[in-house]
């Protein structure tokens, strides 16, 4: 009970610190980067539920992210749908794609599954490039309207910050609830031993499909805010490299916890920014850090922090 209270205090302090960020950081550029990180975070949280918990590694999450962005942006541009219903549409469409890709994915594991998800991501991007009448092709969409939620117009970086923060808190909260429930427990069981799960009565196919759909829904919601936040978008924002970036955030932070997604995204986005001055060396260092992380911190940064935490606790107990 005591540790739970402590946990709540940490959480409240963290939220307060987060909420006050726009007052501390007055540089609009930094705020913009933080907002982007928040959007990526939402994708990574969903990715962790699929890859970290259920063990279904996806290298095609940029595809779901793209669907969210385009569905929300196009329904706003062509049909005049406001942002909030547009987001719901985006979430539903992304989930539907998650369902479709889950059908072949159910039968696949390991490298084969990775490849199927890569194929999915590429198909989405190529359709966006080639379906010119609807998607405007490689040129992409411009003038995506700003969100207007029940009369509240979101225009500045600071306002976007709070909208993204709310979405992230909601998303992380949902993810945590799922992860700590029977559903999360079953996801992990499937990751650990699919056959044994089946033998214990777990409808594995249904759970895998659910994991894909939930994970895609997170990416879809993130995509919807991404389009409105950027105002413009094109297929170039959703390449294989972007899928890889999401997976890297997940692994570097620690894919088997919800918090790991947050840690990983913040770490990699800050790293990218810190290295901006060394333009030419930036991606080299990025690559090296990936390698070092998976060799020396296989549970990710969050795994490292968590381990330290439990050690402290057990020392305090004794």
């Amino acid at each position, binding site marked *: 009970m005591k540790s739970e209270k402590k946990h709540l205090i940490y959480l409240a302090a963290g939220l307060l610190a987060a909420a006050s960020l726009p007052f501390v950081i007055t540089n609009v550029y930094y705020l913009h980067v933080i907002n982007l990180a928040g959007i990526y975070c939402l994708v990574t949280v969903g990715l962790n539920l699929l890859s970290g918990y259920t063990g279904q590694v996806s290298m095609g999450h940029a595809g779901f992210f793209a669907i969210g962005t385009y569905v929300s942006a196009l329904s706003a541009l062509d049909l005049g749908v406001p942002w909030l219903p547009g987001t719901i549409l985006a979430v539903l469409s992304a989930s539907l794609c998650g369902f479709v890709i889950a059908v072949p994915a159910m039968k696949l594991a390991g490298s084969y599954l990775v490849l199927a998800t890569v194929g999915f991501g590429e198909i989405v991007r190529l359709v966006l490039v080639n379906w010119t009448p609807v998607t405007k092709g490689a040129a992409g969409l411009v003038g995506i309207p700003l969100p207007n939620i029940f009369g509240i117009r979101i225009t500045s970086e600071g306002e976007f910050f709070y909208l993204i923060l709310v979405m992230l808190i909601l998303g992380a909260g949902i993810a945590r609830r799922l992860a700590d429930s029977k*559903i999360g*427990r079953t996801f*992990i069981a499937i990751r650990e031993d699919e056959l044994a*799960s089946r033998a214990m009565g777990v409808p594995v196919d249904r759970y895998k499909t659910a994991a894909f759909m939930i994970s895609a829904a997170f990416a879809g919601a993130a995509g919807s805010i991404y389009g409105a936040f950027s105002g413009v978008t094109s297929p170039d924002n959703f390449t294989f490299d972007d899928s890889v970036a999401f997976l890297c955030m997940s692994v570097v932070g620690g894919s088997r916890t919800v918090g790991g997604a947050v840690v990983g995204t913040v770490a990699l986005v800050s790293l990218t920014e810190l290295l901006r001055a060394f333009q030419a060396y930036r991606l080299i260092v990025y690559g090296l850090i990936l390698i070092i992380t998976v060799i020396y911190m296989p549970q990710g940064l969050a795994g490292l922090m968590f381990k330290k935490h439990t050690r402290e606790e057990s020392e305090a107990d004794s």
Partner: protein
Amino acid sequence: MTPAPDALDCIMEIRGISRAFGGLMALDDVSFKIKPGTVHGIIGPNGAGKTTLFNVITGMIPPSRGEVLMEGRPIPSVRPEILTSLGIARTFQNIRLFKEQTVLDNVMIGQHIHTPTPILSILLGGRRAAQGEAAARDEAMRALRFVDLGDKASKTVSSLPYGQQRLVELARALAAKPKVILLDEPAAGMNPTEKAHLIKLLSILKEDGYTIALIDHDMKVVMGNCDVITVLDHGKKIAEGTSESVHSHPDVVAAYLGKGRAEVADA
């Protein structure tokens, strides 16, 4: 919680099961019945087809011919996920636990079909989800205390010694509230104390009305504790009966000791 032994004379029937791998007949027209409330041993030398038989019964691999009936109804093959709802739970020869999960979580997975999944309540942090979890936890703890592992509930499975992992698997199977428990070499890798403990647990389970089918190499585990023993050799059933009758059966002696020795013994 305990299934009452019903009036049926057989709870599970294996009917003419054959299974070929390539040209090799792993099982050749095997038939026998398992009576409710009994401990039924299945023995045989290495490669006799025992584990294949379990895998066919539990729908992990389809039979080439034949069928398995549970309480008179055929068990569909290649659908292991419906086993627990038919009242069958199993353990595995090479322990298939969810290694990175806690002991308690493992056992709770065993209850999968008996616990609700109130999605809305889970998302909203509602009372139904919390109550469901609490009830599931209590139930799982009961199964864990039965195998004397109540104090290990929060340990990660991979940190437990081999013998205890076997007991976690038994607890996980019990959590599924089965009528028939299939145990694939439950005593393998156990030391004598652990074996004695396991045998005691099995006799309690039998008293509680469970039907147990078990494969084992260890004659001590099988002979003293099984009501009926079916002997397989090269995929065929060669003998069946009480431990005394099987023990002295010439074909069984031959199968275990090799033909040469048996002929010498006969002569």
